[in-house]
């Protein structure tokens, strides 16, 4: 579990995070959502220690990370895995070397044992026969999966994913989302995902924290998000007409006005012109 208590962060005279508190639960996908510039990436970087918060505390399983010495932080960081927006793979190393890097740095395992572990995590992210490829030879989705493999190779207790779906097509995004969810459950990891992809929110969001202009605007789960009356959240989540309609339909469904085995004809506008050509009618 990760607790964030009254985090504040400013850059010069610009306050990016005002006062944010949240609890990220173990074995769950905890999502930080918000528009660009809302402070979600800064919050995540404060949580992992890439930025020093101006106020507040970050607690990993009750231990105050912000009050730790560099040596103590290093110990906690060994339990953290992170998937970066651009994957952050080392260009000059192959996929195998990229994933093996944390093992070589922090273990005294034999090469065979390290290689077995690399192959195990590569199989887990459904990437086989890519060991000798360089990052430049991989697609965006493959790079993300290598990034996940590298993040989990040391069996971390905490997994951070910064915009895991950026630049990916919807199908590949879904694959990445499901992979993150499966890994979270399988290894009982505290996963924190920073995203503005609504598919991710609905697919994996056990706990959702909505950030607005550096503040926590709303928190809840994916079911609660449908019924939220928070206007800013609704404007952000259901920005398109299509999603607004989907939300309305889901609310009607929950209220029992539409049955699950609904008749599609009833829901369609009967006055609307037929899409089927007359000669086929």
């Amino acid at each position: 579990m990760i607790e964030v208590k009254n985090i504040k962060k400013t850059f010069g005279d610009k306050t990016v995070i005002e006062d944010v508190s949240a609890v990220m639960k173990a074995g769950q996908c905890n999502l930080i959502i918000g528009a660009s510039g809302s402070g979600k990436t800064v919050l995540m970087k404060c949580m992992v220690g890439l930025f020093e918060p101006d106020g507040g505390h970050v607690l990993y399983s009750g231990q105050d990370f912000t009050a730790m010495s560099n040596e103590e932080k290093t110990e906690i960081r060994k339990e953290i895995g992170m998937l970066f927006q651009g994957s952050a793979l080392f260009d000059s190393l192959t996929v195998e070397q990229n994933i093996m890097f944390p093992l070589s740095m922090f273990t005294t395992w034999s090469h065979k044992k390290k290689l077995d572990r690399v192959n195990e995590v590569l199989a887990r992210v459904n990437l086989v026969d890519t060991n000798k490829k360089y990052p430049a030879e991989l697609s965006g989705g493959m790079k993300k999966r290598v990034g996940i493999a590298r993040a989990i190779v040391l069996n971390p207790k905490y997994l951070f994913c910064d915009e895991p779906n950026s630049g990916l097509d919807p199908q590949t995004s879904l694959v990445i989302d499901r992979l993150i969810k499966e890994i979270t459950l399988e290894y009982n990891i505290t996963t924190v995902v920073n995203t503005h992809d609504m598919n991710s929110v609905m697919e994996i969001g056990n706990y959702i924290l909505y950030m607005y202009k550096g503040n926590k605007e709303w928190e809840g789960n994916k079911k609660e998000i449908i019924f939220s009356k928070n206007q800013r959240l609704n404007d952000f989540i259901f920005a398109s007409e299509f999603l607004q309609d989907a939300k309305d339909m889901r609310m009607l469904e929950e209220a029992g006005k539409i049955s699950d085995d609904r008749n599609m004809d009833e829901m369609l506008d009967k006055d609307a012109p037929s899409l089927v050509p007359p000669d086929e009618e």
Partner: protein
Amino acid sequence: MTIFSDIGRYLLMIKGMFSKPENGRMYWKEFIHQCTEIGVGSLGIVAIISVFIGAVSTIQTAYQLVTPLIPRSTIAQIVRDTVILEFAPTLVCIVLAGVAGSRIASELGNMRVSEQIDALEIMGINTKTYLILPKIIAALLMIPLLVVIAMVLGILGGRIAGVSAGIISGNIYDKGLLEYFVPYNVFFALVKAYVFAFIISSVAAFYGYYVKGGALEIGRASTKAVVVSCIVILFADYILSALLLKQ
């Protein structure tokens, strides 16, 4: 104000480099890799420049020695001392600021922009120690070696040019090389090489490590690293000459 803040950050970066390595073997591998990149990677250009500088020095010295009262072996002495005292350490290091310095700055800049440095930090690795220290130590080992090679090749280039242009015979050139030789000059050149090696690697690492932005900023940081390194090298050259070459 920016210059003071940059100097402060530079000093903090140097201080931050000195921490216990997480894994000695990985650091050794990185050091060897950097030795190859800086040493072997720059050897070609250093060899070419040195030979031509020695050759041009011989021809220009002969051109200026118009009186028959000065023996021809003096040409070799002048070429030897010029190459050892100035051309090999200073000119070669200015070229290395462009070759090795820009490579260090752009490599670190690219790692910063593509979040590779953040990825290392998250793993619990001291990035200043892992990424910068091996580069500086490799530069401190390889650049003086390159300077020594440049001295030899510069003097050899002078001989080849002198003999082939009929300015001086090989025997007289060799005799001139041994006359009035001051070993202290080599020591002075090596002191300069060590100081310049530190400047080249640390200044380039500073500009690369702290780069912000994208591809354009990496290019700017790389250029700035070379310009600042060259200025600091010339300034340090003056200071060292004033301090170490007192009569």
